[in-house]
């Protein structure tokens, strides 16, 4: 594959980092944050982000089984991902694939049942931020492991 050499402006990078940090801090659930970021990166086919967030998830203690089954979480059952996680993953998919049309009421309302308003806003921000990173990395074809800048 042809390499692409577009370096991001440092201001863009630091602003993106602040966005991700604020979202993650506000959500307050590091393991769930990684599941969300991995799932979005799978959908957006971002090799760099997938590699990075799977590694972080392992450090956060997410089991291999939960990582292996994430691409098929809907079929994996409640014993692998609990209801709160499933609500977050359904929201992740809807917010990531906007081009298929909107975020259904059912998906939004299920998430709103499991997360209070501030948590939900931070969760939406986290999904948005990883979608941002996915775009920045895929567009510039950053290989897994980097260098990202």
């Amino acid at each position: 594959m042809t390499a692409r050499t577009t370096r991001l402006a440092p201001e863009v990078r630091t602003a993106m980092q602040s966005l991700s940090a604020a979202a993650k801090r506000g959500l307050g659930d590091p393991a769930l944050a990684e599941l969300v970021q991995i799932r979005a990166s799978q959908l957006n086919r971002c090799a760099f982000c997938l590699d990075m967030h799977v590694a972080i998830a392992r450090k956060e203690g997410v089991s291999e089984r939960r990582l292996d089954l994430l691409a098929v979480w809907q079929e994996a059952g409640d014993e692998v991902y609990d209801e709160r996680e499933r609500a977050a993953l359904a929201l992740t998919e809807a917010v990531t694939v906007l081009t298929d049309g909107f975020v259904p009421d059912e998906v939004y309302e299920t998430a709103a049942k499991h997360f209070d308003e501030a948590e939900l806003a931070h969760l939406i921000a986290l999904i948005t931020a990883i979608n941002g990173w996915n775009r920045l990395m895929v567009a510039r074809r950053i290989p897994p492991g980097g260098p990202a800048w």
Partner: protein
Amino acid sequence: MTTETVSYATEAAPRLEWAKLVPDVYKAMIRLDTAAKQGLDHKLYELVKIRASQINHCALCIDMHSKDALAAGESVERIIQLSAWEESRHFYTERELAALELTEAVTVLTDGFVADEVYEKAAKHFEEAELAQLIAAITVINAWNRFGVTCRMTPGHYQPGAHK
């Protein structure tokens, strides 16, 4: 002459007032927006923002950026034709077309990657630092679209220039 009263559907309130709920996130988004638009041609950036917002179906962002584009002197014709730009190429410059093509590829990642042809065409029209800003700008409007759609922000009330 009789005046007919048109009864429109009821306007819905937003799902979530995210900017008020999480000001830290909102501030980071504003910072990101400011960083991404540095060095980009304003009219081009509005076209990019409108096109991404069309693809992502973000009503608030379409409202905002169509009005901002018009206020910046963009023509009604070029805004109307934007959703069919592939069939109305003569309304746009080759440079704008390369940017629009890149916008679509970076917006619709789930259909698969950003093709070499698309990337290379953009790289021919934009030097490296500018291309990085364009990619950042496409990323940022995609982010605003996600907040707008998910929180179902209400379109129609935007006044041009309010978010410059």
